């Protein structure tokens, strides 16, 4: 079977890969690009462990066919930090003990970034609903929610400092 050629931008770099027509974008990211940060927890779009940003929108990469990524701009958990500088979400997840086993963490970081990109000052309820598509079985969500709120406050503070 001939394979499909896909050109896209992943985490700021131009990328190309070959994939099967029916292959998921998650499988392509993991198998072709060796980006192992997005995880398969269910394969049916129910757990959010495979969350990515595609053209700025939060998506379950297990529900997207890899050829659909042609021409798209994709951000995975590996692209959230700016070089060695962690994103405030990553810093706050560490400081707030927002992970136990850590397998859902990449999805939560990506989903929370999608939230803060469009709503930099969410309420607790808004955070809870924005992350309702991401399953965590370890934490009971408490420390995740607190860490996202802490990251939002930190981003706001840093923005204000920059703006003077």
């Amino acid at each position, binding site marked *: 079977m001939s394979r499909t050629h896909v050109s896209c931008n992943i985490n700021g770099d131009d990328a190309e890969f070959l994939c099967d027509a029916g292959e998921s974008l998650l499988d392509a990211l993991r198998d072709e690009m060796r980006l192992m940060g997005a995880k398969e927890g269910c394969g049916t779009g129910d757990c959010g462990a495979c969350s990515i940003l595609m053209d700025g929108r939060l998506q379950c990469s297990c529900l997207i066919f890899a050829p659909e990524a042609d021409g798209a701009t994709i951000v995975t958990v590996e692209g959230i930090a700016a070089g060695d500088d962690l994103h405030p979400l990553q810093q706050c997840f560490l400081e707030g003990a927002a992970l136990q086993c850590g397998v859902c963490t990449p999805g939560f970081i990506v989903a929370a970034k999608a939230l803060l990109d469009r709503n930099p000052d969410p309420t607790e309820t808004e955070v809870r609903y924005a992350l309702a598509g991401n399953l965590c079985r370890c934490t*009971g969500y408490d420390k995740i929610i607190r860490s996202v709120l802490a990251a939002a406050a930190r981003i706001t503070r840093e923005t204000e400092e920059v703006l003077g």
Partner: protein
Amino acid sequence: MTITEQKPSYRYVGTRPVRHDGLDKVVGKARFAADLVLPGMLHGHILRSPHAHARILSIDTARAAAMPGVRAIISGADFPDLPADDPERNMTRNLMARDKVMYEGHAVAAVAATTRRQAKEAAEAIEVTYEVLPHVLEIADAMEPGAPLLHEDMITTGVDPEPSEPSNVSNRTCYERGDVDAALAAADIVVEGEFTTKPIHQGYIEPHACVADTGQDGKTVIWCSSQGHFRVRSQTAAMLGWDTSRIKVIPAEIGGGFGGKTTIYLEPLATELSARAGRPVKLVMSRDEVFRATGPTPGSRIRLKLGATNEGRITAAVARLDYEGGAFPGVWAMLGCMCVVSPYNVENFVLEGFEVVVNKPVNAAYRAPSAPMAAFATDTLVDEIAQQVGMDPIDLRLLNCPAEGDTAPYGPKWPVIGLRECLEAIRDSEHYRSKPAAGHGRGLASGFWFNIGEASSATVNLNENGTATVVTGSPDIGGSRASMALMAAEELGIDVHAIQPVVGDTEVVGFTDVTEGSRATFATGMAVVEACRDLKGQLRGRAAKMWECDVDDVEWADGHATHSGGEHEPMALAAITAEAGRTGGPLGATASLNARGAGPAFSVQVVDVSVDDETGRVTVERYTTAQDAGTAIHPDYVEGQMQGGVVQGIGWALNEEYIHDTDGTMENPGFLDYRIPVASDLPMIETIIVEVPNPNHPYGVRGVGEVGIVPPLPALANAIHDATGARIRDLPMSPPRVLAAITAGDGDGG
């Protein structure tokens, strides 16, 4: 919040440093088992039974073997058939069916091929001929005379005289004390009820995964996600009929387990496929396979009768606990008997448990296994007693509260326990002292779990720059590496981030039992402390050499050697390790031990709920949990265990259940239809860490991993009763069931 009694002051223990493995996990670098790729690696796929119960007449692999990319095919006949008395026999027959399939999803054959798709298509091309047999799914049906037999040779043990006929009951357990008939006759109040729960899955987000690479020397290396790689080694060896020395198991990061990864499903299959193909083989389960073929925790049917005085003292308990183990028997009913009335001093009881097999997936441990269902029955009825005698439910529990020296229902004397302190912590909490909001109902419950010790090993090596490496054999399932580093930092007096905690494979660290029974921080922590204390003795000796003084004149304090006569300035650990080459060589120590005296765990929880009377939906409005941690080594991760346990219990109480159709096919094998709690379902989970130190641990640790899941089932049932007047005795308390109970006006209406 932390409530502590006479805790020594520590420099590191009790602080909240960033965990050592955290960075890799927030940037996507942490390696879980499914992330491993080896050169030449093949992909495996398992063919599973479509039938709940059937005899395998033939397996024809000819067509599959001829398909592109296929390198190996195996089935049950390719593994040795263990003798009937081998303790691992049922495990091996669960991993790959022999003769019969026992549940829908039971593994029948496996294929290794170049790509995942090739493996899947080839597995589906294997032709299996079945003779479908009658099946049985529910406890009551399985115990009926004439029920379809899962195991034609299973004779119930624990019954006198021994039955002459086989049945689906593998074992009867009984604990008795006093004269229960007389106590019930004398009781002022008798309450009773029958309670049922469904099988529940552990629901870890990471499906089971492994890679096996079997070499031409007949040895294999396995990378896998498990709660205990030494058990992976021994169980894999048992199934293959290999000597364990042929198997090396390297633990990957584990994406949740909750008891469900204390046993194996894939590793011997991947190893055998790899041996036949001469290439590494990866096996990764789908979520569907996880639901159909792993876990769950047993469904149960519990009948309980309690007698009490008008003053609220519980005087008698009669319990009959039936637990379904899935297709092979477990020890679930026995554990239920041991837990069912343990938070109460009861003088007279008969606690009888039956272990039942049904045509469902073989059960695995799930966080305080068997205790939540038992507590559901007990703490619901205790709530009824409190109501009938007009007592505050905490006062009633304090009146019946066991303390050190009392005899636990399952035999031993209670050591130092913190149940009273947990009850008092909730009683004194702002949550309990404030009234529930208008229309909300409040429920309270307590829970018990044993905790265990078992075998652990640790090696601590000091590096020349004064840092340390701590190697243990306990997979880190929720932050235990940080706890190991904190205890080592406290002992050695060096910064917690100067310590690198490592989970070592089966060839670099001494034998260590599975991370289960809330034992890692307790038992493996003891091994770390023991190794560090050995090292401190060595460090004193090296300082004495450098100072040319008697070792008895050297003490170790705050990370420094100090001279008792004051003749030398204190010398930092790094100054000693820098000179180690000239004073006797590298500094390292190993400790291996059987940890005894795991302190029992108790939790007391209070919850406020609202109930939508049009839909029956229950909303958790406020939740507070108090739990005795002994000593919280890393309070963030103690709170995390408490919160995680509570939320799993909330899911169990309100939503989760295995649903099978009449053919025995699971109807909800995905997270859409098997709905675990999501963030928008929940409030914050308020925690009160109670610290009643365990005298058997150098820092007073008692395990914290499990007991938090025990009280939510009855706490929510009691809260729903408080809100609606309905007493619900069957889980889950999902909207249709709650609505039906409200509409029917179930319960006492009180």
